[in-house]
């Protein structure tokens, strides 16, 4: 195969044959190497979480990709094509200007107007000192109730936007909660305190991708419907009059929580 090996002759066949296969093989290996290189690059550039999120978003069922403006009733129907990242959405302002119409009561669960909500059922609260508190919203709380264990990042750890902020274990289900924004963890709370994480973003963050006001109502309503659908797959009972009963996971162990949690926390 190589000139220094017994039996090698500088014949045309040798040269043509080996160069052909050399080319093919190097093409294959180069491809593999390139893929690996790009992967490492993404990690270095902190794009990994975003990439994963985009991959996952791409495979969400259509019904779970609804645009916030549709949820807010500003549009009849629109699918998000920016992976829920309204910061990059060119049409955002155009639609945001339209009037919303969602009766606040439509939401099956309570929410606060001065919190920003993430589709992964976390809320964000900007504090005076420029840090941001992150917590689970009511919907998620009702679902999970009191988790058996919570695994929070260490202080000073970095969290990526759409990356996994913390994980909880409940009835043997591992729940991975997405971080609504990127930054450094400066303190950690938990189920008992009123927040889970306090983080300090690297720069003044753009929070446009988070839901607020009527969108939240619409979104939560939609979520409750979804929940209802998924649970009724097991046996058809749910909260009386649309308000959710607490600690559903304990109350209804029979349901397909696996699927429910996945769609709730958008974690495939």
């Amino acid at each position, binding site marked *: *195969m190589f000139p220094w*090996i*017994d*039996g*090698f002759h500088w*014949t045309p*066949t*040798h040269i043509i*044959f*080996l160069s052909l*296969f050399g080319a*093919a*093989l190097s*093409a*294959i290996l180069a*491809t*593999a190497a*390139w*893929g*690996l290189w*790009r*992967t490492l690059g*993404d*990690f270095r550039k902190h794009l*990994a*979480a975003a*990439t*994963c999120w*985009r*991959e*996952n978003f791409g*495979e969400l*069922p*259509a019904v779970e990709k609804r645009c916030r403006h549709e949820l807010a009733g500003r549009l009849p129907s629109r699918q998000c094509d920016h992976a829920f990242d309204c910061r990059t959405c060119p049409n955002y302002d155009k639609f945001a200007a339209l009037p919303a119409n969602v009766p606040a009561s439509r939401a099956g669960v309570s929410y606060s107007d001065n919190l920003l909500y993430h589709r992964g059922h976390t809320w964000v609260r900007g504090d005076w000192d420029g840090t941001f508190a992150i917590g689970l919203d009511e919907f998620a709380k009702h679902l999970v109730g009191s988790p058996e264990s919570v695994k929070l990042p260490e202080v000073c750890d970095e969290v990526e936007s759409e990356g996994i902020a913390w994980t909880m274990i409940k009835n*043997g289900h591992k729940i*991975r909660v997405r971080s609504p924004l990127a930054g450094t963890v400066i303190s950690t709370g938990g189920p008992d305190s009123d927040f889970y994480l306090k983080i300090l973003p690297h720069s003044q963050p753009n929070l446009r991708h988070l839901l607020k006001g009527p969108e939240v109502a619409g979104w939560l309503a939609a979520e409750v419907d979804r929940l209802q659908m998924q649970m009724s797959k097991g046996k058809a009972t749910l909260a009386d009059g649309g308000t959710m009963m607490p600690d559903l996971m304990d109350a209804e162990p029979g349901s397909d929580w*696996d*699927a429910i949690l*996945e*769609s709730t926390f958008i*974690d*495939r």
Partner: protein
Amino acid sequence: MSETALVDRRWIERGAERASTMRFLLWLFPWVCLLLLGVYAAGLCFYYGLNQTNMDNRFAFGLWIFLDLTVIALGAGAFFTGFLVYILKQQDLKPVLNSAVVIGLTCYSGAVAVLMVDVGQPLRAWFTFWYPNTHSMLTEVTFCISCYLLVLVLEYIPVLVKNRQLRRVPSFLVFEHQAHKLVPVLAGVGAFLSFFHQGSLGGLYGVLRGRPFAYRQGFMIWPSTFFLFILSAIAVGPSFLMLVVATAEKITGQKLVDFRVYRKLGFISGVMLAIYVAAKAIDTYVWLNVTSPSMGFGPWDYYSYWPLSSTFLFTATVPLGLLPAILFIVPRTARHRGLLLLAAALTCCGVALNRFVMTVQTLALPTLPFDPFLKYTPSWQEVATFGAVVAYGVIVYSLSYRYLPMFEAMKGE
């Protein structure tokens, strides 16, 4: 739901309808047994040597080479579908692409595994790369197949890491994301390699000047069988793919791909098959009237021994070649799912028969005038190893179907 079932469920696509864990295990059980038996048989061959087989100095190749040639032909769907989707941009074939990759991977890895058992000194296999004789078709085959196996692995990884649990490892998912952009390159290289080794597998016999039954004239260094094998492989690949998917649909009771895909695959098979049959006819004519007589061999020397053998040539070309081609192409029949699948089945049988004739019949026929016509029946070890490859294919495909998004493109977006 039991604990294992729960865990099992977590590895399955969200919202995917799959058989219960128990049923799945029951389905796997016989195949696993077959696989283990085959592995044991192969072990015997490694430990005691090839005297475990019924091959001999005259039947130096046997069941296994037939298996290799057939399986690799059937696996051709992988490269050709990839070629169509990524190079010729036939996006509507995307739904079956993943299963094509899985089929290809199993076929090729299976074939290579059997080859390793088939050689007398497996530990010297790498000599072929170290001291390659570039004039040998077998060298070409070895190089191509090992390179192409690499390609298939690289094509399979993205499918693999799409598994619900594996994808949670960010690096996997990111790699998948990046690798996906490069699949066209792989598809291109794969096509190149496949064209060559499918051909070389034909050349393997076509160059045998000492075996006038197999020897063919050709173009430059390539005998006509080189091109015939490429054609037949391309023809049978889509058919086999279609057959496998249809079987999967039957077993799982789910609609996996749209019927349009079937028709498209069928049409490709049909056209290729038609070209192949025509080429084969010309080749046979030239061989029987020019090539073979020039070496002192007449048709009688091939077909006088074993009455059945004379029908092989006809069977492989007409009922198992021309007929399916027609079924595939004529719209009235192609519209009919049953006929389409029948045609696919016929095509697969036809190509298998052709490979059988090229490998086994070639060796059974005597060359020396005072030689007898030889018979050979494989030993149980050979058969078991054969079965193991089939089992291996079924198992890998089943696992992939259950745990990987094989037909993701079907998800209504």
